[in-house]
């Protein structure tokens, strides 16, 4: 029922993005193929996506809908055009940092397509080393990262060792000022990972920057990782350029550090450009036109120039979901994207830095 242009391909660079967007609007806003959420919402858009959205530029007309995904029934997010045959890989949630979590449907076909595109570096490594077991110290359950690492483990030809991790509980602890408890929980996770590293052959390590840094505190674990691990995959938060450089040059020298800048709100993420950095940070290219980024001035909403910093706006546009214009809380430098990629690439993702500000407090120090 759908136009072939909407089928996911691992090399979408030849797709005409405007034509893609036009076809996608037909898919999501025709009653035969669209999902209840968008068909219902279309009436209040103030424009007709079927006729008024003729290319990528017109997507800016969509407001940021993402908050409505907090309480939308999951059935309402399934495009009718996909029929019954489409397997659902899972229901995944945003982290819940800014309120109740937002829920999204992850379709099997999309997830596999995305992972094939993202995993080429990993495929190259495994082609050299042979099958590798994975250790995933990542959020699982409602978090996409857990499922993603399961799929990678399969691609790597080995088994996946896991450790349970509940980042929402850590956030609760930190928000209550219980940093000691948060610390103890993190150490509990490291202890479990340590046992796996000591007793099993681990070739791929997937984790978050905070846990990687925590593993790096233990000289014995660093030795174990350096002996057997052939690739480290990280995601889930930011890693500053200085930390990344130290990890690569001193802590885990010679082990490729593969970062994925992504979000559940786009059901995927971007891929680090091979051997190309901007100011010490990896450059992340999106899986365009399915996923793309804009980098805007937080005050005006206007796109910033290349090399300038701004707030990241993410969009996911596939026949599996339409998630336009989600303003993330991340700041990043806007980088010129590769040929054929719409929007922008990004580098140096991080929170807004807060220096200075010297309130008067009593005392002389």
């Amino acid at each position, binding site marked *: 029922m759908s136009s072939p242009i909407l089928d996911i391909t691992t090399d979408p660079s030849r797709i005409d993005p405007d034509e893609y967007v036009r076809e996608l609007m037909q898919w999501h806003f025709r009653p035969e193929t669209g999902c209840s959420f968008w068909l219902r919402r279309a009436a209040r858009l103030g424009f007709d996506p079927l006729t008024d959205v003729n290319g990528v530029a017109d997507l800016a007309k969509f407001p940021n809908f993402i908050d409505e995904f907090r309480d939308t029934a999951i059935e309402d997010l399934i495009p009718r055009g996909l029929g019954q045959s489409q397997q659902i890989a899972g229901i995944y949630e945003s982290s819940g940092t800014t309120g109740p979590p937002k829920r999204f449907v992850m379709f099997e076909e999309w997830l596999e397509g995305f992972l094939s595109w993202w995993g080429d570096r990993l495929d190259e490594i495994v082609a050299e080393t042979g099958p590798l077991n994975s250790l995933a110290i990542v959020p699982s359950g409602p978090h996409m990262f857990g499922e993603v690492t399961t799929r990678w483990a399969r691609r790597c030809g080995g088994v996946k060792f896991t450790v349970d991790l509940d980042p929402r509980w850590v956030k609760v602890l930190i928000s209550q000022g219980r940093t000691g408890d948060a610390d103890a929980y993190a150490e509990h996770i490291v202890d479990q990972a340590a046992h796996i590293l000591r007793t099993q052959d681990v070739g791929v390590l997937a984790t978050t920057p905070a846990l990687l840094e925590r593993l790096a505190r233990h000289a014995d674990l660093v030795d174990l990782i350096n002996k057997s691990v052939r690739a480290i995959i990280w995601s889930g938060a930011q890693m500053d350029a*200085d*930390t990344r450089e130290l990890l690569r040059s001193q*802590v885990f020298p010679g082990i490729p550090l593969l970062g994925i800048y992504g979000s559940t709100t786009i059901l995927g993420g971007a891929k680090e450009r091979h051997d190309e950095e901007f100011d*010490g940070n990896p450059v992340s290219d999106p899986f365009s036109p399915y996923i793309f980024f804009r980098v805007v001035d937080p005050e005006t909403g206007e796109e910033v120039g290349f090399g300038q910093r701004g707030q990241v706006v993410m969009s996911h546009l596939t026949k599996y979901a339409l998630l336009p214009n989600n303003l993330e809380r991340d700041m990043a430098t806007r980088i010129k994207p590769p040929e054929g990629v719409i929007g922008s690439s990004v580098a140096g993702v991080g929170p807004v830095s807060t220096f200075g500000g010297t309130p*008067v407090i*009593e*005392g*002389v*120090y």
Partner: protein
Amino acid sequence: MAELVHVDALGADGIYRTRRRMDLTSVSGEKIGEIGLVSPLYVRRTVAAMREAPVPSATDRIAMLDKAADIYLTGTIADMNADQYAHLVSVASGVPLSVVRGSIAGVADALRALRHTAGLAMPMGAAACWDDPRTESGSAVWTRKGDVFAVHASGNTPGVHGLWPEALALGYKVAVRPSNREPFTAFRLISALREAGFSDDSVALLPTDYETADVIIAEADYAMVYGGQDVVDKYAGNPRVLPQGPGRSKILVTKDVDWRDKVSLIADAVSYLGGTACVCTTSVLIEGDPAPLAEALADRLSQIPSLAAEDPAAVLTVQPCEQAEKIDQYLHTVAEGTRPWLGGDSIVDELPAGGAVLRPAVHEVRSPDASQLNVELPFPCVWVGPWAPEDGIAPLKRSLVVTAMTEDRQLIEDLLREPSITNVYLGDTPTTLMLPGVPHDGYLGEFLMRTKAVIR
């Protein structure tokens, strides 16, 4: 400053240049340099390496400290000579140049004095080394409680850095997080210590942000932290941290002493170091009517000229205008209900070249239990209040230094017995007097060392 100054971390492998950097500005708002801010990972790796570093002998440590004093005082370090350094500190911190110079000399003196002062905290029953003949029949030996000492320094005056080198003398490795406003002294002193022979993994400079600063404390065995009451409260339950908080130093003048002879002494104790030290007098309690003393102090302090910090004749501290305004507003708020003798309208005196002088303030409070008597602000700000013998030492509690101008022996005994008073000075000794070997918050050795029995 035409050329920008770069303050980089001095880690266990030498100079470490981070990508994460912050501007350093003068009090007039001009960019004067950049400071690199290290990551938690770097902190942890540095402290771990320091922990493994060998400890030089006590004799070598003292010799190196001596040598470092000369290099720090007169040397050219990172292309900067001693004059340029003093000037830079003044421009960055707003501390008058003459105060900076005096303070620099004080740090050098403190380093040289360690030959004699480092052992003063040792209990009389203890030997300095295990092979002392006394251990043959059994003796206490003075030993370190840990390996790594961390310091969160402040940028008030270079003098802040006169204290922690005692830890080096005792054989500790020391990691210093400098002030992000005036990191030049820490950089210069640690560079000098390294040039004098201390290895890169025995003394380190770890400039960083507020969050990562906690990591330095967590990784070290013991720490000393300069800060306000918030810092004191934060670490109150942490026996590994020695907070250096507000001083709230006070002077008491009883009836048996003629205050008229003491006006200049008191005024100097208020304005010493531009009022930026914890030993500066915050309040004066006088038996009888406080008004004449307040008036005399106001008269005296009002004569200090407003000058740029780098002017050799400057006495008062300069701050960025915005910060000066904030302090002024805060003073207005806390001073409510008091009688202003000086600075009641405004303490801000903007300089033509940028920044503002913080002019002295004198306020009279009505009673010895007025809360203002414990309000310490970073400029010459003094509260004068009445005191009567029946008030006892209660209004003098919670003070780093109390100078008691009195002949009353019982009162002196009471002050000495009071645990919340750290130091008691008598007669014409200003609260600001600091002498090598005379501890101002106990000896650092009391905090960092213990005795261990050795019998052989």
